[in-house]
């Protein structure tokens, strides 16, 4: 039963990641790309981690995965924010690229 749930969650997260990559190639504006990737990546990461937690059961490795999830929730927005801020302060304009 656990294996089925974990497989389902892993497939859902793969779907999220594939959509993220489609978004990266489909959008023509840098700011739209960073908005999409910052969200879809985090969702895919969390979902695949929950799926792997179902597979390992309750043990120390589950707690390690939880620790990594917590770190990812803290650090992922930080780096996204740093990139977006760098582009904004360097004067990269919003709007369509040519």
């Amino acid at each position, binding site marked *: 039963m656990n294996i089925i749930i974990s497989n389902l969650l892993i497939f859902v997260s793969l779907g*999220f990641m594939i*959509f993220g990559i*489609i*978004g990266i190639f*489909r*959008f*023509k*504006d840098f*700011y*739209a790309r*960073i*908005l*999409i990737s*910052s*969200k*879809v990546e*985090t*969702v895919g990461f*969390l979902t695949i981690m929950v799926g792997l937690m179902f597979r390992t059961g309750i043990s*120390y*490795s589950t*707690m*390690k995965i939880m*620790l990594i999830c917590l770190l990812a*929730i*803290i650090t*992922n*927005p*930080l780096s*996204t*924010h740093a990139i*977006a*801020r760098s582009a*904004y*302060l360097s004067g990269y304009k*919003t709007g369509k690229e040519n």
Partner: protein
Amino acid sequence: MKKITGYFSMIFIFTLIWIILNEKAGATQIVTGLILSIFSIFFANYYLLEEEYVDHYSLNIKSVIKYLVYLIFQIYKSGFSAIGKIIKKEYDVRISEYTSCLNDELSICLLANAITLTPGTVTIDKNGSKLKILSFEKDNIGTIAIDSETCSEFEKILGGIRE
């Protein structure tokens, strides 16, 4: 008294992390974990921080859990809305300003962190309690109510994060 309980809870959390990293809960691990966490807290207290450690980082556990649960719910909501955006191919963005009604540094940083992860927004710049937010043109920002007098849901939760 409050300070002492704060220090004890910090030491407990650090020892727990040490045990998780060691993957074993024997007597040796617990003792070394206690010694290392006490040493690191007092080292940070005397050499790295200007204030006391507890004043700086003590948080209300109930608020933190509420924040995390609400954040994860919002992350999933924004993930599904992002997929809709990708299919419909909308990419007009705008930059707007938002003045938060919080005035504590740590809470504002946590708010900016939450804004980055939730519907259609990335925080670009922070100046005092003023935040610059990048978002999609047609997005109703929902949880982060721009141009409104009242505090949003996140700010209500983060208001009580200090003990």
